[in-house]
Protein backbone atom coordinates (compact mmCIF):
# COMPACT_ATOMS: atom_id res chain seq x y z
CA UNK A 1 0.00 0.00 0.00
CA UNK A 2 1.14 3.45 -0.89
CA UNK A 3 2.02 5.72 1.98
CA UNK A 4 -0.37 8.61 1.53
CA UNK A 5 -0.64 11.92 3.31
CA UNK A 6 -3.62 12.65 5.57
CA UNK A 7 -5.40 14.47 2.77
CA UNK A 8 -4.22 13.40 -0.66
CA UNK A 9 -5.50 14.60 -4.03
CA UNK A 10 -4.31 12.37 -6.83
CA UNK A 11 -4.68 13.37 -10.47
CA UNK A 12 -7.79 15.48 -9.99
CA UNK A 13 -9.28 16.73 -13.27
CA UNK A 14 -12.64 18.43 -13.57
CA UNK A 15 -14.39 18.93 -16.88
CA UNK A 16 -17.72 20.70 -17.21
CA UNK A 17 -19.96 20.22 -20.22
CA UNK A 18 -20.82 23.56 -21.86
CA UNK A 19 -22.58 24.62 -25.03
CA UNK A 20 -19.26 25.03 -26.78
CA UNK A 21 -18.08 21.60 -25.76
CA UNK A 22 -16.33 20.35 -22.62
CA UNK A 23 -14.50 22.91 -20.48
CA UNK A 24 -11.55 21.66 -18.46
CA UNK A 25 -11.39 23.62 -15.21
CA UNK A 26 -8.74 21.58 -13.45
CA UNK A 27 -6.10 19.39 -15.01
CA UNK A 28 -4.14 16.73 -13.14
CA UNK A 29 -3.95 18.33 -9.71
CA UNK A 30 -1.84 16.45 -7.16
CA UNK A 31 -1.72 17.77 -3.63
CA UNK A 32 -0.70 16.19 -0.35
CA UNK A 33 -1.57 17.77 2.96
CA UNK A 34 -0.43 16.53 6.34
CA UNK A 35 -2.56 16.39 9.43
CA UNK A 36 -2.70 19.73 11.22
CA UNK A 37 -1.33 21.62 8.24
CA UNK A 38 -2.82 24.97 7.21
CA UNK A 39 -2.73 25.30 3.43
CA UNK A 40 -3.72 28.43 1.53
CA UNK A 41 -4.75 28.07 -2.12
CA UNK A 42 -4.16 31.25 -4.08
CA UNK A 43 -4.74 32.17 -7.70
CA UNK A 44 -6.53 34.59 -9.97
CA UNK A 45 -10.30 34.55 -10.35
CA UNK A 46 -11.45 31.71 -12.53
CA UNK A 47 -8.41 29.55 -11.88
CA UNK A 48 -10.52 26.76 -10.47
CA UNK A 49 -9.53 27.07 -6.84
CA UNK A 50 -13.16 27.02 -5.72
CA UNK A 51 -13.74 23.98 -7.91
CA UNK A 52 -10.82 22.26 -6.20
CA UNK A 53 -12.22 23.05 -2.77
CA UNK A 54 -15.64 21.77 -3.83
CA UNK A 55 -14.05 18.53 -5.00
CA UNK A 56 -12.50 18.04 -1.55
CA UNK A 57 -15.83 18.93 0.04
CA UNK A 58 -17.57 16.41 -2.23
CA UNK A 59 -19.89 19.06 -3.63
CA UNK A 60 -18.36 18.73 -7.12
CA UNK A 61 -17.45 15.39 -8.59
CA UNK A 62 -14.00 15.03 -10.09
CA UNK A 63 -14.05 13.81 -13.68
CA UNK A 64 -10.81 11.95 -13.03
CA UNK A 65 -8.69 11.41 -9.98
CA UNK A 66 -9.34 10.53 -6.36
CA UNK A 67 -9.40 12.35 -3.03
CA UNK A 68 -8.15 10.35 -0.06
CA UNK A 69 -8.79 11.45 3.49
CA UNK A 70 -7.00 9.43 6.13
CA UNK A 71 -6.64 6.60 3.63
CA UNK A 72 -10.31 6.51 2.63
CA UNK A 73 -11.75 7.66 -0.68
CA UNK A 74 -14.14 10.60 -0.33
CA UNK A 75 -16.61 11.27 -3.13
CA UNK A 76 -19.61 12.82 -1.42
CA UNK A 77 -20.16 15.71 0.99
CA UNK A 78 -20.10 15.03 4.69
CA UNK A 79 -19.70 16.76 8.02
CA UNK A 80 -16.14 15.44 8.37
CA UNK A 81 -15.18 18.12 5.81
CA UNK A 82 -16.85 21.25 7.18
CA UNK A 83 -17.05 24.19 4.80
CA UNK A 84 -16.95 27.87 5.71
CA UNK A 85 -18.66 29.54 2.78
CA UNK A 86 -17.77 33.00 1.57
CA UNK A 87 -21.32 34.24 2.05
CA UNK A 88 -21.46 32.61 5.54
CA UNK A 89 -24.70 30.84 4.45
CA UNK A 90 -26.29 30.94 7.87
CA UNK A 91 -29.96 30.01 7.76
CA UNK A 92 -31.82 33.29 8.31
CA UNK A 93 -34.81 31.71 10.06
CA UNK A 94 -32.64 30.22 12.81
CA UNK A 95 -30.95 32.07 15.65
CA UNK A 96 -27.17 32.07 16.03
CA UNK A 97 -27.39 29.26 18.57
CA UNK A 98 -29.81 27.23 16.44
CA UNK A 99 -27.59 27.55 13.38
CA UNK A 100 -24.65 26.05 15.23
CA UNK A 101 -26.97 23.64 17.00
CA UNK A 102 -28.16 22.21 13.69
CA UNK A 103 -24.58 21.29 12.80
CA UNK A 104 -23.82 19.90 16.25
CA UNK A 105 -26.96 17.76 16.30
CA UNK A 106 -25.84 16.20 13.03
CA UNK A 107 -22.33 15.39 14.14
CA UNK A 108 -22.28 14.88 17.88
CA UNK A 109 -23.65 12.10 19.98
CA UNK A 110 -24.35 12.68 23.63
CA UNK A 111 -27.01 14.30 25.76
CA UNK A 112 -28.91 17.50 25.21
CA UNK A 113 -27.01 19.45 27.83
CA UNK A 114 -23.69 18.23 26.51
CA UNK A 115 -24.52 19.34 22.97
CA UNK A 116 -25.81 22.68 24.19
CA UNK A 117 -22.59 23.29 26.10
CA UNK A 118 -20.55 22.38 23.01
CA UNK A 119 -22.53 24.85 20.89
CA UNK A 120 -21.94 27.60 23.43
CA UNK A 121 -18.28 26.71 23.88
CA UNK A 122 -17.66 27.10 20.15
CA UNK A 123 -19.56 30.37 19.98
CA UNK A 124 -17.48 31.64 22.90
CA UNK A 125 -14.38 30.65 20.95
CA UNK A 126 -15.30 33.11 18.17
CA UNK A 127 -16.48 35.69 20.75
CA UNK A 128 -20.12 35.39 19.78
CA UNK A 129 -21.39 34.06 23.10
CA UNK A 130 -23.29 37.31 23.60
CA UNK A 131 -25.50 36.85 20.53
CA UNK A 132 -26.98 33.37 21.04
CA UNK A 133 -30.58 34.47 20.51
CA UNK A 134 -29.92 36.88 17.65
CA UNK A 135 -30.84 36.10 14.07
CA UNK A 136 -28.28 36.47 11.27
CA UNK A 137 -30.11 39.54 9.94
CA UNK A 138 -29.29 41.34 13.18
CA UNK A 139 -25.54 40.77 12.85
CA UNK A 140 -22.84 42.57 10.91
CA UNK A 141 -20.98 40.77 8.12
CA UNK A 142 -18.00 40.00 10.33
CA UNK A 143 -20.18 38.62 13.12
CA UNK A 144 -22.05 36.41 10.68
CA UNK A 145 -18.79 34.95 9.46
CA UNK A 146 -17.69 34.35 13.06
CA UNK A 147 -20.83 32.29 13.54
CA UNK A 148 -20.06 30.51 10.26
CA UNK A 149 -16.64 29.62 11.65
CA UNK A 150 -18.16 28.44 14.93
CA UNK A 151 -20.61 26.25 13.04
CA UNK A 152 -17.78 24.64 11.07
CA UNK A 153 -15.38 24.00 13.95
CA UNK A 154 -18.21 22.77 16.18
CA UNK A 155 -18.58 19.86 13.75
CA UNK A 156 -15.04 18.76 14.76
CA UNK A 157 -14.23 18.08 11.12
CA UNK A 158 -11.26 16.10 9.93
CA UNK A 159 -10.59 18.86 7.40
CA UNK A 160 -11.77 22.44 7.61
CA UNK A 161 -12.42 23.99 4.20
CA UNK A 162 -12.64 27.76 3.84
CA UNK A 163 -13.87 29.25 0.60
CA UNK A 164 -12.61 32.86 0.57
CA UNK A 165 -14.02 33.22 4.06
CA UNK A 166 -13.19 36.91 4.46
CA UNK A 167 -13.54 38.02 0.86
CA UNK A 168 -16.70 40.01 1.47
CA UNK A 169 -15.44 41.84 4.56
CA UNK A 170 -13.72 45.18 4.99
CA UNK A 171 -10.00 45.22 5.76
CA UNK A 172 -10.26 45.86 9.51
CA UNK A 173 -12.92 43.24 10.08
CA UNK A 174 -10.90 40.84 7.96
CA UNK A 175 -7.83 41.38 10.13
CA UNK A 176 -9.71 40.67 13.33
CA UNK A 177 -11.20 37.50 11.86
CA UNK A 178 -7.78 36.37 10.68
CA UNK A 179 -6.54 36.79 14.22
CA UNK A 180 -9.51 34.81 15.48
CA UNK A 181 -8.73 32.00 13.03
CA UNK A 182 -5.06 31.90 14.12
CA UNK A 183 -6.17 31.86 17.72
CA UNK A 184 -8.58 28.97 17.15
CA UNK A 185 -6.06 27.12 15.03
CA UNK A 186 -3.55 27.27 17.88
CA UNK A 187 -6.12 25.60 20.15
CA UNK A 188 -7.66 23.05 17.79
CA UNK A 189 -4.82 22.30 15.36
CA UNK A 190 -7.23 21.53 12.55
CA UNK A 191 -6.19 20.52 9.07
CA UNK A 192 -7.24 23.51 7.00
CA UNK A 193 -7.52 24.28 3.30
CA UNK A 194 -8.30 27.94 2.69
CA UNK A 195 -8.95 29.68 -0.60
CA UNK A 196 -7.91 33.29 -0.79
CA UNK A 197 -6.79 35.89 -3.25
CA UNK A 198 -5.16 38.03 -0.61
CA UNK A 199 -1.39 37.52 -0.57
CA UNK A 200 -0.91 38.86 2.96
CA UNK A 201 -3.67 36.68 4.29
CA UNK A 202 -2.15 33.59 2.71
CA UNK A 203 1.36 34.27 4.02
CA UNK A 204 0.20 35.27 7.49
CA UNK A 205 -2.10 32.34 8.12
CA UNK A 206 -0.73 29.39 6.21
CA UNK A 207 2.02 26.84 6.67
CA UNK A 208 2.04 26.38 2.91
CA UNK A 209 0.87 28.61 0.10
CA UNK A 210 -0.18 26.62 -2.95
CA UNK A 211 -0.28 28.80 -6.06
CA UNK A 212 -2.47 27.86 -8.98
CA UNK A 213 -1.90 28.60 -12.64
CA UNK A 214 -4.55 30.39 -14.66
CA UNK A 215 -7.45 28.44 -16.13
CA UNK A 216 -8.65 26.80 -18.21
CA UNK A 217 -6.98 23.52 -17.34
CA UNK A 218 -5.47 25.07 -14.22
CA UNK A 219 -3.08 23.14 -12.07
CA UNK A 220 -0.68 23.76 -9.22
CA UNK A 221 2.13 26.09 -10.25
CA UNK A 222 4.14 26.39 -7.09
CA UNK A 223 4.04 25.19 -3.52
CA UNK A 224 5.73 27.48 -1.01
CA UNK A 225 6.42 26.58 2.59
CA UNK A 226 6.09 29.44 5.08
CA UNK A 227 8.55 28.60 7.81
CA UNK A 228 7.63 31.30 10.28
CA UNK A 229 7.19 30.31 13.92
CA UNK A 230 3.81 30.51 15.61
CA UNK A 231 2.10 32.32 17.19
CA UNK A 232 2.41 34.95 14.51
CA UNK A 233 1.71 38.56 15.20
CA UNK A 234 0.71 40.51 12.13
CA UNK A 235 2.75 43.57 13.07
CA UNK A 236 5.88 41.72 14.13
CA UNK A 237 6.03 39.30 11.22
CA UNK A 238 5.53 42.09 8.70
CA UNK A 239 9.10 43.19 9.43
CA UNK A 240 10.72 39.77 9.22
CA UNK A 241 12.71 38.63 6.24
CA UNK A 242 10.82 35.34 5.88
CA UNK A 243 7.53 37.14 5.62
CA UNK A 244 8.66 39.61 3.03
CA UNK A 245 10.50 36.97 1.08
CA UNK A 246 7.43 34.72 0.95
CA UNK A 247 5.22 37.64 0.06
CA UNK A 248 7.53 38.67 -2.78
CA UNK A 249 7.60 35.13 -4.08
CA UNK A 250 3.82 34.86 -4.21
CA UNK A 251 3.49 38.30 -5.78
CA UNK A 252 6.05 37.36 -8.39
CA UNK A 253 4.12 34.22 -9.25
CA UNK A 254 0.76 36.00 -9.47
CA UNK A 255 1.85 39.12 -11.29
CA UNK A 256 4.82 38.09 -13.41
CA UNK A 257 4.67 34.43 -14.21
CA UNK A 258 0.88 34.04 -14.23
CA UNK A 259 -0.52 37.52 -14.40
CA UNK A 260 -4.24 38.17 -14.38
CA UNK A 261 -5.76 36.71 -17.56
CA UNK A 262 -8.02 39.75 -17.92
CA UNK A 263 -5.03 42.12 -18.05
CA UNK A 264 -3.29 39.89 -20.56
CA UNK A 265 -6.26 39.98 -22.86
CA UNK A 266 -6.43 43.77 -22.69
Amino acid sequence: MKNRSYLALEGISVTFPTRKGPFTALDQVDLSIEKGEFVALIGHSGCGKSTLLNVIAGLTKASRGVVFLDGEVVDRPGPDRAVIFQDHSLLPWLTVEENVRLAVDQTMKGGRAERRDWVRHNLELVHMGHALAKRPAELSGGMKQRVGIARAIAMTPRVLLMDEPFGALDALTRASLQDAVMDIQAKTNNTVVMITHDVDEAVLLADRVVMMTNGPAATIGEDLRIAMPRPRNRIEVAETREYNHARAEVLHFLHQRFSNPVDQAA
Partner: protein
Amino acid sequence: MYSTANAVAKVSPAPEPAALEESGVVIALSPPAATLAPSKELPVRRLPRFVEAAGEAAAAVLPTIVVIAALLAIWQFACSAPGSTLPSPSRIWTESHDVIMHPLKGVTFHGIVPSVEGGDVGIAVHIVTSLRRVAIGFGLAAICGIGLGVLIGQSRLAYRALDPLFQVLRTVPPLAWLPISLAVFQQAQPSTVFLIFITAIWPVILNTAAGVQAIPPTYRNVGKVLALNPLQYFTKIMLPATVPHMFTGLRIGVGMSWLAIVAAEMVQGGTGIGFFIWDSYNSSLLTDTIVALVWIGLVGFALDRIVGWIGRRIAHQA
Protein backbone atom coordinates in the same frame (compact mmCIF):
# COMPACT_ATOMS: atom_id res chain seq x y z
CA MET B 1 -62.63 37.47 -15.13
CA TYR B 2 -61.22 34.12 -14.12
CA SER B 3 -58.55 34.15 -16.76
CA THR B 4 -57.12 37.37 -15.38
CA ALA B 5 -57.16 35.95 -11.89
CA ASN B 6 -55.37 32.90 -13.21
CA ALA B 7 -52.73 35.00 -14.82
CA VAL B 8 -51.76 36.38 -11.42
CA ALA B 9 -50.96 32.90 -10.21
CA LYS B 10 -47.45 32.89 -11.67
CA VAL B 11 -46.45 36.09 -9.95
CA SER B 12 -44.57 35.43 -6.75
CA PRO B 13 -43.27 38.63 -5.20
CA ALA B 14 -42.33 36.98 -1.92
CA PRO B 15 -39.33 38.52 -0.19
CA GLU B 16 -36.19 36.44 -0.50
CA PRO B 17 -34.85 35.41 2.89
CA ALA B 18 -31.41 36.55 1.75
CA ALA B 19 -32.68 40.03 1.09
CA LEU B 20 -33.76 40.39 4.69
CA GLU B 21 -30.30 39.65 6.00
CA GLU B 22 -28.70 42.76 4.69
CA SER B 23 -30.95 45.07 6.64
CA GLY B 24 -29.62 43.80 9.96
CA VAL B 25 -26.71 46.16 10.53
CA VAL B 26 -29.01 49.06 11.19
CA ILE B 27 -30.52 47.35 14.20
CA ALA B 28 -27.13 46.75 15.78
CA LEU B 29 -26.20 50.39 15.37
CA SER B 30 -29.41 52.01 16.57
CA PRO B 31 -29.05 53.96 19.81
CA PRO B 32 -30.32 52.44 23.06
CA ALA B 33 -34.02 53.01 23.64
CA ALA B 34 -33.41 55.07 26.77
CA THR B 35 -31.99 58.01 24.86
CA LEU B 36 -35.20 58.35 22.93
CA ALA B 37 -37.35 58.97 26.00
CA PRO B 38 -37.80 62.61 26.98
CA SER B 39 -35.61 63.53 29.92
CA LYS B 40 -37.10 64.90 33.15
CA GLU B 41 -35.31 68.24 33.16
CA LEU B 42 -36.82 69.31 29.89
CA PRO B 43 -40.62 69.37 30.12
CA VAL B 44 -41.74 68.32 26.69
CA ARG B 45 -45.27 69.29 25.87
CA ARG B 46 -46.90 66.28 24.31
CA LEU B 47 -50.46 65.21 23.83
CA PRO B 48 -51.60 62.23 25.91
CA ARG B 49 -50.66 58.97 24.24
CA PHE B 50 -54.24 57.83 23.49
CA VAL B 51 -55.01 61.12 21.77
CA GLU B 52 -51.93 60.69 19.62
CA ALA B 53 -52.87 57.11 18.76
CA ALA B 54 -56.42 58.12 17.94
CA GLY B 55 -55.10 60.88 15.72
CA GLU B 56 -52.89 58.46 13.83
CA ALA B 57 -55.76 56.01 13.38
CA ALA B 58 -57.99 58.77 12.11
CA ALA B 59 -55.35 59.89 9.64
CA ALA B 60 -55.15 56.32 8.35
CA VAL B 61 -58.88 55.69 7.83
CA LEU B 62 -60.18 59.19 7.19
CA PRO B 63 -59.33 59.29 3.46
CA THR B 64 -61.14 55.98 2.93
CA ILE B 65 -64.21 57.21 4.79
CA VAL B 66 -64.28 60.43 2.79
CA VAL B 67 -64.06 58.54 -0.49
CA ILE B 68 -66.81 56.11 0.51
CA ALA B 69 -69.06 58.98 1.60
CA ALA B 70 -68.43 60.82 -1.66
CA LEU B 71 -69.16 57.74 -3.77
CA LEU B 72 -72.35 57.06 -1.82
CA ALA B 73 -73.42 60.67 -2.37
CA ILE B 74 -72.79 60.47 -6.12
CA TRP B 75 -74.60 57.15 -6.29
CA GLN B 76 -77.53 58.56 -4.34
CA PHE B 77 -77.70 61.59 -6.60
CA ALA B 78 -77.43 59.60 -9.82
CA CYS B 79 -80.02 56.96 -8.90
CA SER B 80 -82.60 59.06 -7.10
CA ALA B 81 -84.83 59.48 -10.17
CA PRO B 82 -88.10 57.53 -9.82
CA GLY B 83 -87.49 55.28 -12.84
CA SER B 84 -83.90 54.38 -11.99
CA THR B 85 -83.10 50.72 -12.64
CA LEU B 86 -80.26 50.72 -10.09
CA PRO B 87 -81.56 51.31 -6.55
CA SER B 88 -80.00 54.22 -4.65
CA PRO B 89 -78.32 53.71 -1.24
CA SER B 90 -81.30 55.11 0.62
CA ARG B 91 -83.63 52.72 -1.19
CA ILE B 92 -81.32 49.81 -0.33
CA TRP B 93 -81.44 50.85 3.31
CA THR B 94 -85.24 50.94 3.42
CA GLU B 95 -86.05 47.95 1.19
CA SER B 96 -83.37 45.59 2.46
CA HIS B 97 -83.52 46.73 6.06
CA ASP B 98 -84.38 43.25 7.24
CA VAL B 99 -81.45 41.65 5.37
CA ILE B 100 -78.99 44.24 6.64
CA MET B 101 -80.08 44.24 10.26
CA HIS B 102 -80.85 40.54 10.75
CA PRO B 103 -78.00 38.59 9.20
CA LEU B 104 -78.52 35.77 11.70
CA LYS B 105 -82.20 35.19 10.93
CA GLY B 106 -83.25 31.58 11.43
CA VAL B 107 -80.42 30.86 13.84
CA THR B 108 -81.22 29.93 17.40
CA PHE B 109 -78.59 29.63 20.05
CA HIS B 110 -78.55 26.86 22.60
CA GLY B 111 -75.93 28.35 24.86
CA ILE B 112 -73.22 29.17 22.36
CA VAL B 113 -74.05 26.35 19.97
CA PRO B 114 -75.99 27.74 17.02
CA SER B 115 -78.56 25.72 15.14
CA VAL B 116 -80.31 26.70 11.94
CA GLU B 117 -84.03 26.19 11.56
CA GLY B 118 -86.18 26.66 8.51
CA GLY B 119 -85.27 27.53 4.94
CA ASP B 120 -85.55 31.31 5.18
CA VAL B 121 -82.25 32.20 6.83
CA GLY B 122 -80.18 35.36 7.20
CA ILE B 123 -77.30 36.34 4.99
CA ALA B 124 -74.62 35.40 7.54
CA VAL B 125 -75.85 31.81 7.47
CA HIS B 126 -75.36 31.70 3.72
CA ILE B 127 -71.91 33.17 4.12
CA VAL B 128 -71.00 30.51 6.68
CA THR B 129 -72.24 27.77 4.33
CA SER B 130 -70.04 29.13 1.56
CA LEU B 131 -67.08 29.55 3.92
CA ARG B 132 -67.38 25.95 5.05
CA ARG B 133 -67.18 24.75 1.45
CA VAL B 134 -64.21 26.99 0.82
CA ALA B 135 -62.51 25.74 3.98
CA ILE B 136 -62.75 22.09 2.89
CA GLY B 137 -61.88 22.66 -0.75
CA PHE B 138 -59.11 25.13 -0.04
CA GLY B 139 -57.69 23.00 2.76
CA LEU B 140 -57.41 20.02 0.41
CA ALA B 141 -55.94 22.25 -2.30
CA ALA B 142 -53.33 23.60 0.14
CA ILE B 143 -52.20 20.12 1.22
CA CYS B 144 -52.12 18.61 -2.28
CA GLY B 145 -50.77 21.81 -3.85
CA ILE B 146 -47.83 22.09 -1.48
CA GLY B 147 -47.05 18.40 -1.95
CA LEU B 148 -47.13 18.60 -5.74
CA GLY B 149 -45.29 21.91 -5.72
CA VAL B 150 -42.44 20.45 -3.68
CA LEU B 151 -42.35 17.46 -6.03
CA ILE B 152 -42.03 19.46 -9.25
CA GLY B 153 -39.78 22.03 -7.61
CA GLN B 154 -37.37 19.38 -6.41
CA SER B 155 -37.35 16.84 -9.23
CA ARG B 156 -36.48 17.92 -12.74
CA LEU B 157 -38.12 14.80 -14.13
CA ALA B 158 -41.39 15.50 -12.32
CA TYR B 159 -41.21 19.10 -13.48
CA ARG B 160 -40.84 18.09 -17.11
CA ALA B 161 -43.62 15.53 -16.79
CA LEU B 162 -46.19 17.57 -14.91
CA ASP B 163 -45.55 21.26 -15.49
CA PRO B 164 -47.02 21.41 -19.04
CA LEU B 165 -50.12 19.66 -17.74
CA PHE B 166 -50.51 22.15 -14.88
CA GLN B 167 -49.90 25.09 -17.17
CA VAL B 168 -52.76 24.00 -19.41
CA LEU B 169 -55.16 23.01 -16.66
CA ARG B 170 -54.70 26.21 -14.67
CA THR B 171 -56.10 28.26 -17.53
CA VAL B 172 -59.41 26.37 -17.48
CA PRO B 173 -61.98 28.70 -15.88
CA PRO B 174 -63.41 27.25 -12.65
CA LEU B 175 -66.99 27.23 -13.92
CA ALA B 176 -65.97 25.08 -16.88
CA TRP B 177 -65.33 22.29 -14.37
CA LEU B 178 -68.84 22.53 -12.95
CA PRO B 179 -70.69 20.25 -15.42
CA ILE B 180 -68.11 17.50 -14.94
CA SER B 181 -68.11 18.03 -11.20
CA LEU B 182 -71.90 17.84 -11.02
CA ALA B 183 -72.02 14.77 -13.22
CA VAL B 184 -69.45 12.96 -11.10
CA PHE B 185 -70.53 13.98 -7.60
CA GLN B 186 -74.30 14.40 -8.21
CA GLN B 187 -74.74 16.61 -5.15
CA ALA B 188 -74.21 20.28 -4.47
CA GLN B 189 -71.85 20.03 -1.49
CA PRO B 190 -69.12 17.75 -2.91
CA SER B 191 -69.25 19.28 -6.36
CA THR B 192 -68.75 22.83 -5.07
CA VAL B 193 -65.96 21.61 -2.81
CA PHE B 194 -64.28 20.00 -5.82
CA LEU B 195 -64.68 23.22 -7.76
CA ILE B 196 -62.88 25.17 -5.02
CA PHE B 197 -60.17 22.55 -4.89
CA ILE B 198 -59.53 22.63 -8.63
CA THR B 199 -59.55 26.43 -8.64
CA ALA B 200 -57.21 26.99 -5.71
CA ILE B 201 -54.65 24.26 -6.31
CA TRP B 202 -52.81 25.74 -9.31
CA PRO B 203 -51.38 28.90 -7.75
CA VAL B 204 -50.37 26.87 -4.69
CA ILE B 205 -48.53 24.30 -6.82
CA LEU B 206 -46.81 26.80 -9.06
CA ASN B 207 -45.72 29.19 -6.33
CA THR B 208 -44.48 26.41 -4.07
CA ALA B 209 -42.49 24.96 -6.97
CA ALA B 210 -41.03 28.38 -7.78
CA GLY B 211 -40.09 28.77 -4.10
CA VAL B 212 -38.36 25.40 -3.96
CA GLN B 213 -36.46 26.18 -7.16
CA ALA B 214 -35.42 29.54 -5.73
CA ILE B 215 -33.74 28.09 -2.62
CA PRO B 216 -30.22 29.56 -2.73
CA PRO B 217 -27.62 26.95 -3.69
CA THR B 218 -25.65 27.72 -0.55
CA TYR B 219 -28.54 26.51 1.62
CA ARG B 220 -28.56 23.30 -0.39
CA ASN B 221 -24.82 23.02 0.15
CA VAL B 222 -25.26 23.50 3.89
CA GLY B 223 -27.72 20.60 3.79
CA LYS B 224 -25.24 18.48 1.86
CA VAL B 225 -22.25 19.27 4.07
CA LEU B 226 -24.31 18.50 7.18
CA ALA B 227 -25.47 15.30 5.46
CA LEU B 228 -29.11 15.98 6.30
CA ASN B 229 -31.40 13.15 5.27
CA PRO B 230 -34.28 14.03 2.91
CA LEU B 231 -36.80 14.46 5.72
CA GLN B 232 -34.45 16.70 7.72
CA TYR B 233 -33.66 18.68 4.59
CA PHE B 234 -37.37 19.16 3.99
CA THR B 235 -38.21 20.34 7.50
CA LYS B 236 -35.01 22.23 8.36
CA ILE B 237 -34.21 23.95 5.07
CA MET B 238 -36.73 23.57 2.28
CA LEU B 239 -39.89 24.34 4.23
CA PRO B 240 -38.66 27.46 6.04
CA ALA B 241 -36.99 28.76 2.89
CA THR B 242 -40.16 28.27 0.84
CA VAL B 243 -42.79 29.56 3.28
CA PRO B 244 -43.01 33.08 1.76
CA HIS B 245 -43.60 31.69 -1.74
CA MET B 246 -46.05 29.12 -0.44
CA PHE B 247 -48.16 31.75 1.20
CA THR B 248 -48.14 33.90 -1.91
CA GLY B 249 -49.73 30.92 -3.65
CA LEU B 250 -52.14 30.23 -0.81
CA ARG B 251 -53.21 33.87 -0.76
CA ILE B 252 -53.94 33.90 -4.48
CA GLY B 253 -55.66 30.54 -4.08
CA VAL B 254 -58.00 31.67 -1.30
CA GLY B 255 -58.99 34.74 -3.32
CA MET B 256 -59.77 32.62 -6.36
CA SER B 257 -61.73 30.16 -4.20
CA TRP B 258 -63.92 32.96 -3.02
CA LEU B 259 -64.51 34.06 -6.61
CA ALA B 260 -65.37 30.54 -7.66
CA ILE B 261 -67.69 29.64 -4.80
CA VAL B 262 -70.04 32.51 -5.52
CA ALA B 263 -70.24 31.63 -9.19
CA ALA B 264 -70.71 27.92 -8.49
CA GLU B 265 -73.50 28.49 -5.99
CA MET B 266 -75.26 30.86 -8.35
CA VAL B 267 -75.43 28.13 -10.95
CA GLN B 268 -76.39 25.20 -8.84
CA GLY B 269 -78.62 26.67 -6.16
CA GLY B 270 -79.68 25.46 -2.76
CA THR B 271 -77.61 27.29 -0.16
CA GLY B 272 -74.67 29.63 0.12
CA ILE B 273 -74.07 33.26 -0.67
CA GLY B 274 -74.02 32.66 -4.42
CA PHE B 275 -77.46 31.14 -4.21
CA PHE B 276 -78.63 34.10 -2.13
CA ILE B 277 -77.62 36.47 -4.92
CA TRP B 278 -79.29 34.42 -7.62
CA ASP B 279 -82.44 34.00 -5.52
CA SER B 280 -82.71 37.72 -4.78
CA TYR B 281 -82.23 38.53 -8.45
CA ASN B 282 -84.97 36.11 -9.43
CA SER B 283 -87.25 37.64 -6.80
CA SER B 284 -86.47 41.12 -8.21
CA LEU B 285 -84.87 42.12 -4.91
CA LEU B 286 -81.90 43.95 -6.38
CA THR B 287 -81.28 45.76 -3.11
CA ASP B 288 -80.64 42.41 -1.39
CA THR B 289 -78.15 41.54 -4.12
CA ILE B 290 -76.22 44.72 -3.43
CA VAL B 291 -76.10 43.98 0.30
CA ALA B 292 -74.77 40.50 -0.53
CA LEU B 293 -72.07 42.05 -2.72
CA VAL B 294 -70.85 44.13 0.19
CA TRP B 295 -70.71 41.04 2.40
CA ILE B 296 -68.80 39.07 -0.24
CA GLY B 297 -66.28 41.85 -0.64
CA LEU B 298 -65.69 42.21 3.08
CA VAL B 299 -65.38 38.46 3.66
CA GLY B 300 -63.02 38.06 0.69
CA PHE B 301 -60.90 40.89 2.03
CA ALA B 302 -60.83 39.26 5.45
CA LEU B 303 -59.82 35.86 3.99
CA ASP B 304 -56.96 37.46 2.08
CA ARG B 305 -55.71 39.27 5.15
CA ILE B 306 -55.99 36.22 7.39
CA VAL B 307 -53.92 34.04 5.06
CA GLY B 308 -51.39 36.84 4.64
CA TRP B 309 -51.17 37.28 8.40
CA ILE B 310 -50.67 33.56 9.04
CA GLY B 311 -47.94 33.54 6.40
CA ARG B 312 -46.09 36.38 8.05
CA ARG B 313 -46.39 34.78 11.48
CA ILE B 314 -44.98 31.48 10.23
CA ALA B 315 -42.21 33.16 8.24
CA HIS B 316 -41.10 34.99 11.38
CA GLN B 317 -41.18 31.90 13.55
CA ALA B 318 -39.79 29.35 11.14
